[in-house]
């Protein structure tokens, strides 16, 4: 079982990201859960969402405390929140950042494996908005094998209708531009 924690700000679509990954994983025959950090969310405030994906039935309702993967949608969050908190040994933090690996490690003190992409730039250019939730899914696909691209695209089409094309393009660009460290 793989556990994912998504950090975003209220309104950035972190819950939607979680939903898309879980529905896609279920569509490809896996078991999955997606859930928000339950509560009254406020626009702009740091929020989290969670995903579990497994080959067998998931029998827990615990929150995710020790993620395998952390996905951070907003570049300002690693300075405010300890995004690597509870990360499993060998886990990976996936960041939306314009910084280099050494800058990230120095500034935020993250020791784990990293994947980095400037998703804000991609989203602004491809979608016309700095909303990075779908773009960052490209980084997730590149850095992990948690879900396949095809069912994820189908989930995007179902969710966004005619807007899916732009989101798919942003996602694919992020896949190409994501840098994964050793």
């Amino acid at each position, binding site marked *: 079982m793989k556990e994912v924690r998504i950090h975003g700000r209220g309104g950035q679509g972190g819950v939607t990201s*979680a*939903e898309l990954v*879980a*529905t*896609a*994983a*279920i*569509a490809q025959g896996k*078991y*999955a*859960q*997606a*859930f*928000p950090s*339950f*509560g*009254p969310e406020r626009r702009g405030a740091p929020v989290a969402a969670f995903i579990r994906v497994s080959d067998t039935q*998931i*029998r*827990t*309702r*615990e*929150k995710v*405390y020790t993620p395998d993967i952390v996905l951070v949608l907003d570049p300002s969050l690693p300075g405010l929140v300890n995004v690597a908190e509870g990360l499993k040994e060998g886990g990976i933090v996936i960041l939306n950042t314009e910084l280099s690996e050494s800058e990230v490690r120095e500034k935020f003190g993250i020791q784990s494996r990293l994947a980095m992409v400037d998703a804000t730039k991609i989203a602004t250019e491809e979608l016309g908005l700095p909303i990075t939730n779908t773009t960052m899914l490209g980084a997730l696909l590149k850095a992990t094998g948690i879900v396949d691209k095809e069912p994820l695209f189908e989930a995007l089409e179902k969710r966004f209708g005619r807007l899916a094309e732009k989101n798919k393009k942003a996602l694919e660009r992020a896949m190409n531009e994501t840098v994964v460290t050793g």
Partner: protein
Amino acid sequence: MSKRVGIEVSIAIAEAVGLARAEVIPAYPITPQTHIVEHLSEMVANGELDAEFIPVESEHAAMSCCCGSSAAGARTFTSSSAQGLSLMSEILYIPSTMRLPMVMVVANRAMSAPISIWNDHQDIMVQRDIGWIQTFAENGQEAVDLTLHAFRVAEDRNVSLPFIVNIDGFTLSHVIEPIELPDQEDVDKFLPPFKPRYKLDPRRPITMGPVGIPEVYTEAKVAHDMAMRKAKRYILKAWDEFAEIFGRKYNPVESYRTEDAEILLVTMGSISETAMTAVDAMRDDGQKVGLLRIRLWRPFPSQEFRKAIGKAKVLAVVDRCLPPGAVCGPVGAEIRSLLYKIPGAPKIFSFVAGLGGRDVTVARFKEIVDKARQFAKKRPRELYEVIGVREK
């Protein structure tokens, strides 16, 4: 063939209510139940469900409308949570003794104060004695299945009682997970149209709900109690029929790894899944631990519960509700009362956990089992223990 899809549990419940062909839905939104009635109102507005959706001004009005709708012979559904459910309270006792079938899904939530929108079982335990049949779901599939089952049982002429399906707020209501939504054809096979024995009809006037003078009130209440006791047979029968059509079998009490178990955890609702994982971990450590999950809460399945205990020496009962000044939590009290002075009955220890959204983790279940083991050796000073309190 129905297919397993990733869907939010609340939306799946609304779809199930649609598959059940509900005819009248008076509802008022309240977190964490809102997505259920929101989706139903969309289904009605989009013409996908041929029903009256009544956007009432309060939960009190919602339940009042439900009474009228059921009395007029319509398949009736509503949903609520916490303080909203309590605002219905004045009316909740009425359809049950009047034997008006309807189904309500309660997305369980803590009672304020302090203000909390998060999950526990306080809201429904406040309404424990309203005389409705009550079940608790463990996961999203069960929430869907129990909703369909509830209509079938409530409207059975041998039962004719209102029915509450409890689902944990947020930990079930807001989770996207794999759920198999049944086919309409199968649901129609399982759930025939609602044909009440009596209904309000101006052409054939009858009186419903007259005053119960002291000469008849006791008899009316005894009749209600008898109906609840008799209902168990039809609840089980409907689960058998459900299994035949849909292939999923439900029991009033489910046993998990209870063979040769010395200590049994007792749970209700979605924490049961985490409890199973905890039992697996403790079994791996060589501990003889098992789990009893109560699915049918009212009428209480006394016979089945006694049988399910087997040879266990200790029961650790987990309540999601803390009634101040009581002997212990309501589930603990129920089981102590059920097993009192039964020869060979296990020692019963009552625990309270998971109030107002506090997570009940695998580690907490291990802590509960450890404490129960200690208590069995040395009787505790208190009649219950609240787990995980940060300061005492």
